[in-house]
Protein backbone atom coordinates (compact mmCIF):
# COMPACT_ATOMS: atom_id res chain seq x y z
CA UNK A 1 0.00 0.00 0.00
CA UNK A 2 1.14 3.49 -0.72
CA UNK A 3 1.53 5.79 2.26
CA UNK A 4 2.29 9.49 2.26
CA UNK A 5 3.44 11.47 5.26
CA UNK A 6 5.77 14.20 6.43
CA UNK A 7 9.07 13.02 7.87
CA UNK A 8 11.33 15.51 9.59
CA UNK A 9 10.03 18.27 7.37
CA UNK A 10 10.10 16.41 4.06
CA UNK A 11 7.28 14.73 2.17
CA UNK A 12 7.82 11.02 1.80
CA UNK A 13 5.97 8.30 -0.03
CA UNK A 14 6.52 4.62 0.57
CA UNK A 15 4.90 1.44 -0.63
CA UNK A 16 4.71 -1.10 2.15
CA UNK A 17 2.88 -4.18 3.33
CA UNK A 18 0.04 -3.38 5.74
CA UNK A 19 1.75 -5.43 8.42
CA UNK A 20 4.92 -3.34 8.43
CA UNK A 21 5.09 -1.19 11.53
CA UNK A 22 6.14 2.44 11.40
CA UNK A 23 9.50 1.74 13.03
CA UNK A 24 10.51 -0.77 10.36
CA UNK A 25 9.28 1.60 7.68
CA UNK A 26 11.44 4.41 9.04
CA UNK A 27 14.47 2.17 9.51
CA UNK A 28 14.47 -0.20 6.57
CA UNK A 29 12.55 1.65 3.87
CA UNK A 30 13.37 5.28 4.60
CA UNK A 31 16.80 4.40 6.06
CA UNK A 32 16.37 6.63 9.08
CA UNK A 33 17.90 4.16 11.49
CA UNK A 34 18.06 6.41 14.55
CA UNK A 35 14.74 4.95 15.74
CA UNK A 36 15.62 1.65 17.40
CA UNK A 37 13.79 -1.59 18.12
CA UNK A 38 14.33 -2.98 21.59
CA UNK A 39 11.28 -5.18 22.03
CA UNK A 40 8.67 -4.74 19.28
CA UNK A 41 5.87 -5.18 21.78
CA UNK A 42 5.46 -1.70 23.14
CA UNK A 43 7.35 -1.86 26.40
CA UNK A 44 10.87 -0.50 26.00
CA UNK A 45 10.27 2.85 24.26
CA UNK A 46 13.43 2.77 22.15
CA UNK A 47 11.24 3.22 19.08
CA UNK A 48 9.54 6.42 20.30
CA UNK A 49 8.86 8.97 17.56
CA UNK A 50 6.64 12.05 17.49
CA UNK A 51 3.50 11.76 15.36
CA UNK A 52 1.31 14.85 14.97
CA UNK A 53 2.91 16.27 18.06
CA UNK A 54 2.49 13.21 20.27
CA UNK A 55 5.22 10.86 21.42
CA UNK A 56 4.21 7.37 20.32
CA UNK A 57 5.75 3.91 20.12
CA UNK A 58 6.55 3.39 16.46
CA UNK A 59 6.42 -0.39 16.89
CA UNK A 60 2.78 -0.16 17.94
CA UNK A 61 1.73 1.79 14.89
CA UNK A 62 1.40 0.47 11.39
CA UNK A 63 3.17 2.42 8.68
CA UNK A 64 -0.14 2.70 6.85
CA UNK A 65 -1.59 4.45 9.89
CA UNK A 66 0.87 7.31 9.37
CA UNK A 67 -0.98 8.40 6.23
CA UNK A 68 -1.25 12.19 6.21
CA UNK A 69 0.63 12.58 9.47
CA UNK A 70 3.63 14.62 10.50
CA UNK A 71 6.37 12.41 11.87
CA UNK A 72 9.47 13.59 13.70
CA UNK A 73 12.28 11.18 14.58
CA UNK A 74 15.52 11.69 16.50
CA UNK A 75 17.19 12.70 13.27
CA UNK A 76 14.67 15.53 13.01
CA UNK A 77 15.64 16.77 16.44
CA UNK A 78 19.19 17.48 15.36
CA UNK A 79 20.90 20.21 13.45
CA UNK A 80 24.10 19.77 11.50
CA UNK A 81 25.64 22.77 13.15
CA UNK A 82 25.71 22.17 16.87
CA UNK A 83 24.07 19.96 19.44
CA UNK A 84 20.66 21.17 20.56
CA UNK A 85 20.25 22.17 24.21
CA UNK A 86 18.65 18.81 24.97
CA UNK A 87 21.49 16.93 23.30
CA UNK A 88 24.07 19.11 25.02
CA UNK A 89 22.50 18.40 28.38
CA UNK A 90 22.52 14.65 27.70
CA UNK A 91 26.19 14.76 26.87
CA UNK A 92 27.06 16.89 29.86
CA UNK A 93 25.27 14.63 32.31
CA UNK A 94 26.50 11.38 30.74
CA UNK A 95 22.91 10.45 30.04
CA UNK A 96 23.90 7.79 27.53
CA UNK A 97 26.34 4.91 27.41
CA UNK A 98 25.62 2.44 24.64
CA UNK A 99 23.27 4.89 22.94
CA UNK A 100 20.59 2.38 22.03
CA UNK A 101 17.76 3.77 24.15
CA UNK A 102 18.89 7.35 23.57
CA UNK A 103 16.78 8.25 20.53
CA UNK A 104 13.62 7.24 22.38
CA UNK A 105 14.72 9.19 25.44
CA UNK A 106 15.33 12.28 23.31
CA UNK A 107 12.04 12.19 21.43
CA UNK A 108 10.09 11.55 24.61
CA UNK A 109 11.89 14.29 26.52
CA UNK A 110 11.46 16.69 23.64
CA UNK A 111 7.75 16.00 23.41
CA UNK A 112 7.36 16.36 27.16
CA UNK A 113 9.33 19.58 27.54
CA UNK A 114 7.69 21.19 24.54
CA UNK A 115 4.33 20.86 26.27
CA UNK A 116 5.52 21.01 29.86
CA UNK A 117 8.72 23.04 30.12
CA UNK A 118 8.21 23.22 33.90
CA UNK A 119 7.92 19.49 34.43
CA UNK A 120 9.49 18.58 37.73
CA UNK A 121 11.73 15.60 38.49
CA UNK A 122 8.83 13.37 39.50
CA UNK A 123 6.93 14.16 36.32
CA UNK A 124 10.02 13.57 34.21
CA UNK A 125 10.68 10.25 35.91
CA UNK A 126 7.09 9.25 35.51
CA UNK A 127 7.04 10.06 31.80
CA UNK A 128 10.40 8.41 31.18
CA UNK A 129 9.29 5.29 33.06
CA UNK A 130 8.05 4.17 29.66
CA UNK A 131 11.60 4.22 28.26
CA UNK A 132 13.89 1.45 29.42
CA UNK A 133 17.63 1.91 29.79
CA UNK A 134 19.96 -0.80 30.95
CA UNK A 135 23.23 1.11 31.03
CA UNK A 136 22.86 4.42 32.83
CA UNK A 137 20.60 3.78 35.81
CA UNK A 138 18.60 6.87 34.68
CA UNK A 139 20.02 9.43 37.11
CA UNK A 140 22.01 11.25 34.42
CA UNK A 141 19.06 11.18 32.03
CA UNK A 142 16.74 12.85 34.52
CA UNK A 143 19.39 15.44 35.35
CA UNK A 144 19.84 16.20 31.67
CA UNK A 145 16.13 16.67 31.05
CA UNK A 146 15.85 18.92 34.10
CA UNK A 147 18.66 21.08 32.81
CA UNK A 148 17.22 21.24 29.29
CA UNK A 149 14.00 22.80 30.59
CA UNK A 150 15.53 26.25 30.50
CA UNK A 151 15.82 26.15 26.72
CA UNK A 152 12.21 25.04 26.31
CA UNK A 153 10.92 27.73 28.62
CA UNK A 154 12.59 30.36 26.51
CA UNK A 155 11.33 28.82 23.28
CA UNK A 156 7.64 28.51 24.13
CA UNK A 157 6.09 30.73 26.78
CA UNK A 158 2.82 28.86 26.30
CA UNK A 159 2.37 25.13 25.88
CA UNK A 160 2.62 23.88 22.31
CA UNK A 161 3.04 20.83 20.19
CA UNK A 162 6.51 19.69 19.14
Amino acid at each position, binding site marked *: *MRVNFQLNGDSVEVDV*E*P*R*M*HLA*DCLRDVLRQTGTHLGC*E*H*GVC*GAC*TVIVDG*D*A*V*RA*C*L*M*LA*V*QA*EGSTVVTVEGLSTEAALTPLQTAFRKHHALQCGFCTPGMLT*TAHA*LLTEEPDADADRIR*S*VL*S*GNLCRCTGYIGIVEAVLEARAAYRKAAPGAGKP
Partner: protein
Amino acid sequence: MKPAPFDYQAPATLREATLLLAADPEATVIAGGQSLMPLLAFRLAAPSLLVDLRRVSGLGTIAIGDSGVRLGARVRWRDIEDDRRLVTAHPLLREAIGHVAHYQIRNRGTVGGSLAHADPAAELPGIAVTCDAEISLAGAAGTRTIPAGEFFTGPLSTLRRPDEIITELHLPPWSRDRRWAFREFAQRQGDFALAGIVLFYDEDQDGRARNAHVGVIGACNRPHRLIEVETLLNGHQVDDGLIRQAAATAAQAVDPPEDLHAGAAYRRGLVATLVERGLRAAAQKRGR
Protein backbone atom coordinates in the same frame (compact mmCIF):
# COMPACT_ATOMS: atom_id res chain seq x y z
CA MET B 1 8.35 -10.48 15.94
CA LYS B 2 6.61 -9.43 12.76
CA PRO B 3 2.87 -10.04 12.46
CA ALA B 4 1.42 -12.63 10.12
CA PRO B 5 0.20 -10.96 6.93
CA PHE B 6 -3.16 -9.21 6.81
CA ASP B 7 -5.11 -6.84 4.59
CA TYR B 8 -5.95 -3.38 5.74
CA GLN B 9 -8.88 -1.05 5.24
CA ALA B 10 -9.59 2.38 6.67
CA PRO B 11 -13.28 2.96 5.94
CA ALA B 12 -14.76 6.44 6.17
CA THR B 13 -17.91 5.48 8.06
CA LEU B 14 -18.94 3.27 10.90
CA ARG B 15 -21.42 1.52 8.66
CA GLU B 16 -18.73 0.53 6.19
CA ALA B 17 -16.61 -0.68 9.05
CA THR B 18 -19.34 -2.98 10.39
CA LEU B 19 -20.03 -4.33 6.93
CA LEU B 20 -16.36 -5.18 6.49
CA LEU B 21 -16.38 -7.03 9.78
CA ALA B 22 -19.59 -8.83 8.94
CA ALA B 23 -18.21 -9.95 5.61
CA ASP B 24 -15.08 -11.50 7.11
CA PRO B 25 -15.24 -13.31 10.46
CA GLU B 26 -11.43 -13.24 10.67
CA ALA B 27 -11.34 -9.45 10.46
CA THR B 28 -10.46 -7.35 13.51
CA VAL B 29 -10.89 -3.71 14.41
CA ILE B 30 -7.85 -1.54 15.10
CA ALA B 31 -8.03 1.88 16.69
CA GLY B 32 -5.02 2.97 18.75
CA GLY B 33 -3.50 -0.48 18.42
CA GLN B 34 -1.82 -0.37 21.83
CA SER B 35 -3.34 -3.67 22.90
CA LEU B 36 -3.73 -5.27 19.49
CA MET B 37 -0.26 -4.66 18.06
CA PRO B 38 1.57 -6.71 20.72
CA LEU B 39 -0.84 -9.58 20.11
CA LEU B 40 -0.06 -9.39 16.41
CA ALA B 41 3.67 -9.19 17.11
CA PHE B 42 3.55 -12.35 19.19
CA ARG B 43 1.30 -13.94 16.56
CA LEU B 44 -1.27 -14.62 19.27
CA ALA B 45 -3.74 -13.13 16.84
CA ALA B 46 -3.60 -13.50 13.07
CA PRO B 47 -6.55 -11.66 11.56
CA SER B 48 -7.11 -11.68 7.83
CA LEU B 49 -8.04 -8.02 7.74
CA LEU B 50 -7.58 -5.00 9.97
CA VAL B 51 -10.42 -2.50 9.89
CA ASP B 52 -8.94 0.80 11.01
CA LEU B 53 -11.31 3.33 12.56
CA ARG B 54 -8.93 6.25 12.02
CA ARG B 55 -11.07 7.91 9.38
CA VAL B 56 -14.41 7.32 11.07
CA SER B 57 -15.64 10.57 12.54
CA GLY B 58 -17.93 11.07 15.51
CA LEU B 59 -16.28 8.57 17.82
CA GLY B 60 -13.81 10.94 19.46
CA THR B 61 -15.94 13.14 21.66
CA ILE B 62 -16.26 13.48 25.40
CA ALA B 63 -19.80 14.68 26.07
CA ILE B 64 -20.74 15.79 29.55
CA GLY B 65 -24.27 16.61 30.51
CA ASP B 66 -27.24 15.73 32.64
CA SER B 67 -27.17 12.13 31.54
CA GLY B 68 -23.61 11.74 32.67
CA VAL B 69 -20.33 11.34 30.81
CA ARG B 70 -20.23 9.84 27.35
CA LEU B 71 -16.86 8.79 26.04
CA GLY B 72 -16.64 8.07 22.34
CA ALA B 73 -14.79 4.85 21.55
CA ARG B 74 -11.86 6.65 19.98
CA VAL B 75 -11.33 8.94 22.95
CA ARG B 76 -7.72 8.49 24.05
CA TRP B 77 -6.34 8.40 27.59
CA ARG B 78 -4.64 11.60 26.67
CA ASP B 79 -7.94 13.27 25.86
CA ILE B 80 -9.38 12.26 29.22
CA GLU B 81 -6.29 13.66 30.94
CA ASP B 82 -6.56 16.92 29.05
CA ASP B 83 -10.28 17.47 29.67
CA ARG B 84 -10.44 19.59 32.78
CA ARG B 85 -14.22 19.27 33.00
CA LEU B 86 -13.76 15.74 34.24
CA VAL B 87 -12.08 16.99 37.41
CA THR B 88 -15.57 17.68 38.70
CA ALA B 89 -17.70 15.74 36.24
CA HIS B 90 -16.07 12.40 37.04
CA PRO B 91 -13.03 12.56 39.31
CA LEU B 92 -12.97 8.81 39.80
CA LEU B 93 -12.60 8.19 36.08
CA ARG B 94 -9.87 10.78 35.89
CA GLU B 95 -7.94 9.34 38.81
CA ALA B 96 -8.12 5.82 37.44
CA ILE B 97 -7.00 6.82 33.96
CA GLY B 98 -3.94 8.45 35.50
CA HIS B 99 -2.67 4.94 36.18
CA VAL B 100 -2.96 3.60 32.67
CA ALA B 101 0.28 2.45 31.08
CA HIS B 102 2.84 5.02 29.95
CA TYR B 103 3.09 8.41 28.30
CA GLN B 104 3.47 7.15 24.74
CA ILE B 105 0.70 4.59 25.07
CA ARG B 106 -1.64 7.19 26.52
CA ASN B 107 -1.28 9.20 23.32
CA ARG B 108 -2.83 6.42 21.27
CA GLY B 109 -4.70 4.00 23.49
CA THR B 110 -8.49 4.37 23.35
CA VAL B 111 -11.59 3.80 25.44
CA GLY B 112 -13.05 1.39 22.90
CA GLY B 113 -9.82 -0.51 22.56
CA SER B 114 -9.51 -1.06 26.28
CA LEU B 115 -13.10 -2.22 26.65
CA ALA B 116 -12.84 -4.59 23.69
CA HIS B 117 -9.53 -6.03 24.86
CA ALA B 118 -10.94 -6.68 28.34
CA ASP B 119 -7.77 -7.26 30.28
CA PRO B 120 -8.88 -8.16 33.80
CA ALA B 121 -6.25 -5.80 35.23
CA ALA B 122 -7.20 -2.81 33.10
CA GLU B 123 -8.50 0.33 34.75
CA LEU B 124 -11.28 1.40 32.41
CA PRO B 125 -13.25 -1.86 32.50
CA GLY B 126 -13.04 -1.63 36.28
CA ILE B 127 -14.44 1.90 36.20
CA ALA B 128 -17.13 0.90 33.74
CA VAL B 129 -18.33 -2.02 35.85
CA THR B 130 -18.15 -0.28 39.19
CA CYS B 131 -19.90 2.85 37.98
CA ASP B 132 -22.79 1.03 36.29
CA ALA B 133 -21.76 2.23 32.87
CA GLU B 134 -23.27 1.12 29.62
CA ILE B 135 -21.42 0.14 26.50
CA SER B 136 -22.91 0.88 23.09
CA LEU B 137 -22.03 -1.17 20.07
CA ALA B 138 -22.84 -0.96 16.38
CA GLY B 139 -23.00 -4.08 14.25
CA ALA B 140 -24.25 -5.15 10.88
CA ALA B 141 -27.68 -5.81 12.37
CA GLY B 142 -27.93 -2.51 14.20
CA THR B 143 -26.94 -1.00 17.54
CA ARG B 144 -27.33 -2.20 21.08
CA THR B 145 -26.33 -1.24 24.57
CA ILE B 146 -24.99 -3.63 27.18
CA PRO B 147 -24.51 -2.91 30.89
CA ALA B 148 -20.80 -3.02 31.68
CA GLY B 149 -21.50 -5.44 34.53
CA GLU B 150 -22.56 -8.03 31.97
CA PHE B 151 -20.20 -7.09 29.16
CA PHE B 152 -17.00 -8.68 30.51
CA THR B 153 -17.22 -12.45 30.62
CA GLY B 154 -13.67 -13.50 31.39
CA PRO B 155 -10.04 -12.69 30.67
CA LEU B 156 -9.86 -10.97 27.27
CA SER B 157 -13.44 -12.01 26.66
CA THR B 158 -16.62 -9.94 26.19
CA LEU B 159 -20.13 -10.14 24.76
CA ARG B 160 -19.08 -8.18 21.69
CA ARG B 161 -19.86 -10.09 18.51
CA PRO B 162 -17.19 -10.24 15.81
CA ASP B 163 -19.07 -7.84 13.56
CA GLU B 164 -19.67 -5.27 16.29
CA ILE B 165 -17.74 -2.13 17.03
CA ILE B 166 -17.86 -0.38 20.37
CA THR B 167 -19.02 3.19 19.84
CA GLU B 168 -19.43 4.69 23.27
CA LEU B 169 -19.05 4.26 27.01
CA HIS B 170 -21.72 6.01 29.00
CA LEU B 171 -21.09 6.70 32.68
CA PRO B 172 -24.05 7.77 34.79
CA PRO B 173 -23.99 11.27 36.29
CA TRP B 174 -21.64 11.76 39.18
CA SER B 175 -22.77 13.19 42.51
CA ARG B 176 -20.76 16.15 43.68
CA ASP B 177 -20.65 15.11 47.32
CA ARG B 178 -19.72 11.57 46.64
CA ARG B 179 -16.95 9.83 48.56
CA TRP B 180 -14.66 7.88 46.30
CA ALA B 181 -11.22 6.31 45.82
CA PHE B 182 -9.15 4.48 43.28
CA ARG B 183 -6.24 2.40 44.49
CA GLU B 184 -4.13 -0.02 42.54
CA PHE B 185 -0.87 -1.83 43.10
CA ALA B 186 1.56 -2.63 40.31
CA GLN B 187 5.19 -3.62 40.59
CA ARG B 188 6.38 -0.68 38.54
CA GLN B 189 4.65 2.48 37.43
CA GLY B 190 2.46 1.71 34.45
CA ASP B 191 2.54 -2.08 34.84
CA PHE B 192 -0.71 -3.98 34.91
CA ALA B 193 -2.24 -3.93 38.35
CA LEU B 194 -1.71 -6.99 40.49
CA ALA B 195 -4.86 -5.75 42.19
CA GLY B 196 -6.94 -2.61 42.06
CA ILE B 197 -9.99 -1.23 43.81
CA VAL B 198 -12.53 1.23 42.46
CA LEU B 199 -15.00 2.53 45.01
CA PHE B 200 -17.50 5.19 45.80
CA TYR B 201 -20.43 5.73 48.12
CA ASP B 202 -22.87 8.46 48.99
CA GLU B 203 -23.91 9.47 52.45
CA ASP B 204 -27.31 10.10 53.94
CA GLN B 205 -27.99 12.99 56.37
CA ASP B 206 -26.72 10.91 59.28
CA GLY B 207 -23.41 10.20 57.63
CA ARG B 208 -24.26 6.62 56.85
CA ALA B 209 -23.07 5.11 53.62
CA ARG B 210 -25.49 4.30 50.90
CA ASN B 211 -25.29 3.39 47.23
CA ALA B 212 -21.87 1.82 47.85
CA HIS B 213 -20.11 0.58 44.74
CA VAL B 214 -16.90 -1.38 45.20
CA GLY B 215 -15.21 -3.02 42.23
CA VAL B 216 -12.05 -5.03 41.77
CA ILE B 217 -9.53 -5.37 38.94
CA GLY B 218 -6.42 -7.50 38.67
CA ALA B 219 -7.25 -9.96 41.43
CA CYS B 220 -9.97 -11.52 39.34
CA ASN B 221 -10.71 -12.97 35.93
CA ARG B 222 -12.94 -10.10 35.00
CA PRO B 223 -13.73 -6.80 36.72
CA HIS B 224 -16.67 -7.14 39.06
CA ARG B 225 -18.35 -5.55 42.02
CA LEU B 226 -17.88 -6.90 45.50
CA ILE B 227 -21.49 -7.11 46.57
CA GLU B 228 -20.63 -8.45 50.01
CA VAL B 229 -18.51 -5.39 50.71
CA GLU B 230 -21.18 -3.03 49.44
CA THR B 231 -23.80 -4.70 51.62
CA LEU B 232 -21.52 -4.36 54.60
CA LEU B 233 -21.08 -0.65 54.02
CA ASN B 234 -24.60 0.38 53.14
CA GLY B 235 -26.57 1.82 56.02
CA HIS B 236 -23.58 2.25 58.30
CA GLN B 237 -21.07 4.84 59.34
CA VAL B 238 -17.81 4.07 57.63
CA ASP B 239 -15.60 4.05 60.70
CA ASP B 240 -12.35 2.33 61.47
CA GLY B 241 -13.92 -0.93 62.56
CA LEU B 242 -16.15 -1.13 59.50
CA ILE B 243 -13.24 -0.35 57.23
CA ARG B 244 -11.25 -3.25 58.65
CA GLN B 245 -14.21 -5.54 58.24
CA ALA B 246 -14.75 -4.38 54.70
CA ALA B 247 -11.13 -5.09 53.89
CA ALA B 248 -11.30 -8.60 55.29
CA THR B 249 -14.59 -9.25 53.50
CA ALA B 250 -13.15 -8.04 50.23
CA ALA B 251 -10.19 -10.36 50.55
CA GLN B 252 -12.52 -13.30 50.93
CA ALA B 253 -14.85 -12.15 48.18
CA VAL B 254 -12.28 -12.29 45.39
CA ASP B 255 -11.09 -15.33 43.52
CA PRO B 256 -7.68 -14.24 42.28
CA PRO B 257 -5.70 -15.88 39.51
CA GLU B 258 -2.16 -17.08 40.08
CA ASP B 259 0.71 -16.21 37.79
CA LEU B 260 4.44 -15.74 37.85
CA HIS B 261 4.09 -12.36 39.58
CA ALA B 262 1.70 -13.16 42.37
CA GLY B 263 -0.25 -15.98 43.95
CA ALA B 264 -3.81 -15.87 45.16
CA ALA B 265 -2.96 -15.29 48.82
CA TYR B 266 -0.92 -12.21 48.05
CA ARG B 267 -3.56 -10.80 45.75
CA ARG B 268 -6.13 -11.25 48.47
CA GLY B 269 -3.81 -9.44 50.84
CA LEU B 270 -3.47 -6.62 48.31
CA VAL B 271 -7.22 -6.36 47.93
CA ALA B 272 -7.58 -6.01 51.68
CA THR B 273 -4.90 -3.34 51.82
CA LEU B 274 -6.33 -1.40 48.91
CA VAL B 275 -9.90 -1.52 50.21
CA GLU B 276 -8.73 -0.35 53.60
CA ARG B 277 -6.65 2.47 52.23
CA GLY B 278 -9.27 3.41 49.68
CA LEU B 279 -12.02 3.64 52.26
CA ARG B 280 -9.84 5.66 54.63
CA ALA B 281 -9.02 8.09 51.84
CA ALA B 282 -12.67 8.29 50.79
CA ALA B 283 -13.73 8.97 54.37
CA GLN B 284 -11.49 12.02 54.36
CA LYS B 285 -12.17 13.31 50.90
CA ARG B 286 -15.49 14.30 49.48
CA GLY B 287 -16.22 15.35 45.90
CA ARG B 288 -12.85 16.15 44.42
